[in-house]
């Protein structure tokens, strides 16, 4: 025997498995894997939440009581499904293109985004579906109780209330966990959908299993079961025509209007094309679910004891026949049916409640100050979770109040009639442009009141809420107002009576008021959007097509104007319109204002195009507009980049200017150089020419004069030659074309050579320290000697001391050879020390023979040799220091 504990364990394991599936699907969707999550087969299976515990348990009970009539509940949806091309496709398209979140949202959007309408629809849905949710709790509770009764080891079965409570709580946890994980803009819940698809398979499999067991295990085959049907109490085909037609229509209407069906069919729809498979697969699913209902009912009636609840035949037949495994499977099927319905219904209803009731109130109470989007999202999530808990709690309360006694089918039908009241407004909205908000509101109101009066309140039983006298004689004794015999329609089936009057008057009111009232511009706009959705949205699947959605406008504006500016403007406008939050109705005034604002950023024509396209009438999709907005942003970015570039150009210009200045300087230097060269060449040539002419032309020159003048010519010619030599030398050195000729030698020898070559011994005393000069050098000795000669002859030329003397002081220091040349003259003034190594720089009065290139050449040579020559300030006279790295010199040599 299956103990209750085993059942609870199996149940918990199953739930854990569902959790795992939902979690895995969510994760897969998150990381972008799992296209299989959104295959048409999953979509079709998710539609099966239409088959609740009412189907799983109730259909058999229904059949046991009324024969084949139960099948109408599935014929209606079948007809709707095979007519998908006509209605469902449009609903899905509208839902996707308008990013609809619930049926309340759809109806309110269609009628000018009227929140009044949304609130009304939400309330009707909550009131209508609370019994339905209670029904699911009841079915799970009953099935538990059935096992408990059969369990010989349980003395005190748990109370039905506590079972129902724990089931409700568990469902709330599951729904909150997977239904409000995120606030996705398109309200899709991959985990939940996957879980209910799985449950769809479980319940179908369970019911088929029971059916197969009943037909082939208990009855003994198809022929046998047909014979038993013939001999059963429901053998006769005697369904009242009104109920047959009425219930078929009712179920068809409910299929489209039930918030949970809307949720899976439209909101969770990934691809409009999935309907293509659902068109044949879902009717097949319904057919399979119904296939064994009558046989099970017949066998139950035959085998079960008198007074057994036919609603539980699915469970009790296997149990009674010792098929415990099958019974557990059957239990899981019923459990799946109940839980999947409750989960999706709770999600759908909580979306409606939080979006249309809680959030507006919250936004209103906070004065529309919620500017930070994250703020709103967290509040919305909280509202969603609280709504789920509240809805399940309501269901539990209804279950407690109603006592769980009413037959399952009756409760289900009451809910169906309630939500069917949406049908006129829904279909009118989708197919008739003349439908107005007032019409929808009036029609819904009339239908709702009639439903309450004729069906819902009486369902609590006479004298509970509705006094017995009212039931019998009508309010205040007005007979034609009797709840179940309105306008004298006596003797009708209560459900059909309620369906007929509520839907009839609902539709008539809706049509009449719509004809009498004028729609607001936004209603007309939305009406066109909905009715002509196929003209507006070119490609299925893209939410496109000129939608007067404040949100779209807002998104676009934010991209163009910047988030804070756009939000400030929108909220200001919304306050002006008396709406909380920051999404004002897109009234013509607002649109005009917005256009003006946007034209400041993107130009008038573009702004006009964008607005008129987003508001409607155009075929450009919102995505295109977003692209335009992004382009604008890019242009702005580009222009800021241009600014940056301008800066860069300024920088470049500065660099160019600097380069130009440098060039100019160089040009000036070149001019100065040429000028200097010219001067240095012309000066000796002047003398040469003048004296040449004198020698040629002048008569009576003395021999002495002749000699003198000839000497001058020679001297100046020598000077010219030297100048040219120096220039060439410098040029070679500066261009780096010099070839160093490294040799090894003694410093002392070099200095001897230099002193003698300078030819200044006669007028300059030279102090040397022979012992310090014993340094071996390896470098270009000729070039180094050139430097030394230059320095020594300079001292000879420019030292103006009365007793000119030059001290040569060599030393080895840190691997360098340092040779100082210090004379006893006045030295070089500090301000000119920096210039002496420049070309043609000459200090003080010109002395013939100096072109001012010597030191420049020295500096170049020392640079080539890897050393340096500097002026050494702070000595007694002019002092030059020659530095030559001893090792470096070797390296330079080695490099050659």
């Amino acid at each position, binding site marked *: 025997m299956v103990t209750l504990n085993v059942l609870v364990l199996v149940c918990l394991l199953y739930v854990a498995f569902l959790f795992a599936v939902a979690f895995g699907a969510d994760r897969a969707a998150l990381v972008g894997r799992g296209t299989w999550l959104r295959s048409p087969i999953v979509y079709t299976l998710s539609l099966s939440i239409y088959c609740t515990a009412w189907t799983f348990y109730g259909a058999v009970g229904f059949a046991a009581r009324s024969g084949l009539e139960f099948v109408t509940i599935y014929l209606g949806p079948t007809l709707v499904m095979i007519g998908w091309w006509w209605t469902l496709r449009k609903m899905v398209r509208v839902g996707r293109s308008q990013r609809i979140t619930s049926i309340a949202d759809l109806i309110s959007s269609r009628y000018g985004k009227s929140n009044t309408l949304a609130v009304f629809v939400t309330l009707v849905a909550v009131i209508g579906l609370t019994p339905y949710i209670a029904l699911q709790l009841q079915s799970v509770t009953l099935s538990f109780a059935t096992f408990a009764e059969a369990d010989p080891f349980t003395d005190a079965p748990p109370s039905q209330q506590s079972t129902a409570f724990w089931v409700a709580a568990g469902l709330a946890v599951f729904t909150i966990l997977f239904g409000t994980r995120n606030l996705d803009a398109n309200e899709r819940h991959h985990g939940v959908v996957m879980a209910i698809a799985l449950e769809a398979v479980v319940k179908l499999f369970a019911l088929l299993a029971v059916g197969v067991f009943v037909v082939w295990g208990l009855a003994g085959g198809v022929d046998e079961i047909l014979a038993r049907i013939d001999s059963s109490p429901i*053998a*006769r085909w005697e369904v009242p025509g009104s109920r047959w037609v009425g219930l078929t229509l009712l179920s068809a209407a409910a299929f489209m209007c039930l918030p949970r069906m809307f949720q899976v069919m439209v909101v969770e729809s990934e691809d409009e094309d999935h309907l293509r498979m659902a068109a044949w697969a879902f009717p097949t699913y319904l057919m399979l679910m119904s296939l064994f209902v009558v046989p099970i009912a017949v066998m139950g009636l035959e085998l079960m004891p008198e007074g057994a609840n036919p609603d539980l035949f699915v469970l009790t037949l296997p149990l009674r026949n010792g098929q415990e495994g099958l019974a557990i499977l059957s239990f899981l099927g019923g459990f799946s049916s109940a839980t999947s319905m409750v989960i999706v219904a709770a999600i759908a209803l909580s979306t409606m409640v939080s979006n249309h009731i809680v959030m507006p109130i919250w936004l209103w109470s906070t004065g529309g100050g919620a500017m930070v989007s994250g703020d709103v999202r967290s509040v919305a999530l909280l509202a969603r979770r609280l709504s789920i808990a509240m809805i399940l709690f309501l269901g539990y309360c209804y279950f407690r109040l109603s006592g769980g006694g009413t037959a399952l089918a009756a409760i289900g039908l009451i809910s169906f009639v309630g939500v069917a009241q949406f049908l006129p407004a829904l279909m009118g909205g989708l197919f008739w442009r003349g439908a107005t908000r007032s019409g929808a509101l009036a029609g819904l109101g009339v239908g709702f009141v009639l439903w309450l009066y004729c069906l819902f309140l009486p369902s609590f039983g006479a004298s509970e809420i509705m006094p017995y006298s009212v039931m019998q004689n009508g309010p205040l004794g007005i007979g034609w107002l009797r709840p179940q015999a309105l306008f004298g329609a006596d003797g009708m089936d209560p459900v059909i009576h309620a369906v007929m009057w509520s839907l009839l008057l609902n539709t008539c009111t809706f049509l009449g008021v719509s004809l009498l009232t004028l729609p607001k511009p936004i209603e007309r706009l939305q009406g066109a959007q909905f009715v002509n959705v196929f003209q507006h949205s*070119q490609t299925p699947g893209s939410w496109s097509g000129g939608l007067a959605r404040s949100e779209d406008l807002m998104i676009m504006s934010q991209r163009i104007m910047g988030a804070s500016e756009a939000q400030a403007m929108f909220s200001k406008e919304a306050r002006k319109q008396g709406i909380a939050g920051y999404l004002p109705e897109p009234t013509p005034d607002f649109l005009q204002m917005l256009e003006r604002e946007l034209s400041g950023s993107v130009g008038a024509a573009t702004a006009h195009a964008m607005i008129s396209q987003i508001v409607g009438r155009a075929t450009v999709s919102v995505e295109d507009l977003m692209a335009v907005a992004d382009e604008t942003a890019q242009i702005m970015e580009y222009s800021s980049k241009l600014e940056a570039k301008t800066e860069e150009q300024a920088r470049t210009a500065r660099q160019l200017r600097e380069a130009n200045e440098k060039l100019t300087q160089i040009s000036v230097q070149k001019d100065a150089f040429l000028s200097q060269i010219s001067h240095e060449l012309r000066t000796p040539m002047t003398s040469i020419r003048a004296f040449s002419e004198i020698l040629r032309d002048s008569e009576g020159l003395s021999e002495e004069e002749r000699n003198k003048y000839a000497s001058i010519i020679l001297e100046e010619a020598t000077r010219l030659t030297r100048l040219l030599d120096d220039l060439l030398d410098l040029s070679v050195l500066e261009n780096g074309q010099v070839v160093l000729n490294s040799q090894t030698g003694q410093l002392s020898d070099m200095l001897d050579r230099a002193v003698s070559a300078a030819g200044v011994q006669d007028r300059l005393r030279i102090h040397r320290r022979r012992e310090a000069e014993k340094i071996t050098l390896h470098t270009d000795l000729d070039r180094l000697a050139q430097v030394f000669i230059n320095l020594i002859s300079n001292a000879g030329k420019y030292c103006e001391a009365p007793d000119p003397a030059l001290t040569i002081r060599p030393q080895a220091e840190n691997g360098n050879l340092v040779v100082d040349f210090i004379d006893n003259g006045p030295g070089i003034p500090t301000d000119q020390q920096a210039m002496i190594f420049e070309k043609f720089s000459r200090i003080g009065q010109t002395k013939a023979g100096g072109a001012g290139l010597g030191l420049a050449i020295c500096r170049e040579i020392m640079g080539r040799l890897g050393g340096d020559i500097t002026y050494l300030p702070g000595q007694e006279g002019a002092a030059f220091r020659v530095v030559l790295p001893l090792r470096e010199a070797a390296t330079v040599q080695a490099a050659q």
Partner: protein
Amino acid sequence: MTAKKTPVFVQRRTYRRRRVADGARLLPVFGGILFLIPLLWEGDPAGAEAVPDGARTAWVMTYLFVVWFGLAVLSGVLARFLVAEDDGGDEEGDS
């Protein structure tokens, strides 16, 4: 069908597609009528012995499930041929 792309061919194809869409719209009406037919078989309430064939639950059940299955198959066939073409749209392009 050949892949020959002549105007006649395209037109014929578009025409066929339109008729398929018409069929899809008519299917629920057709189904509804078929589901109503059993109402005509209401038997004589008196005497369970003389139940005519049509009024037997077993018979009606068989009929209903056959029709049901047939509709599902038909719907599947139509869905295969229905091209997502805009209602009233004049797009003639095939593919």
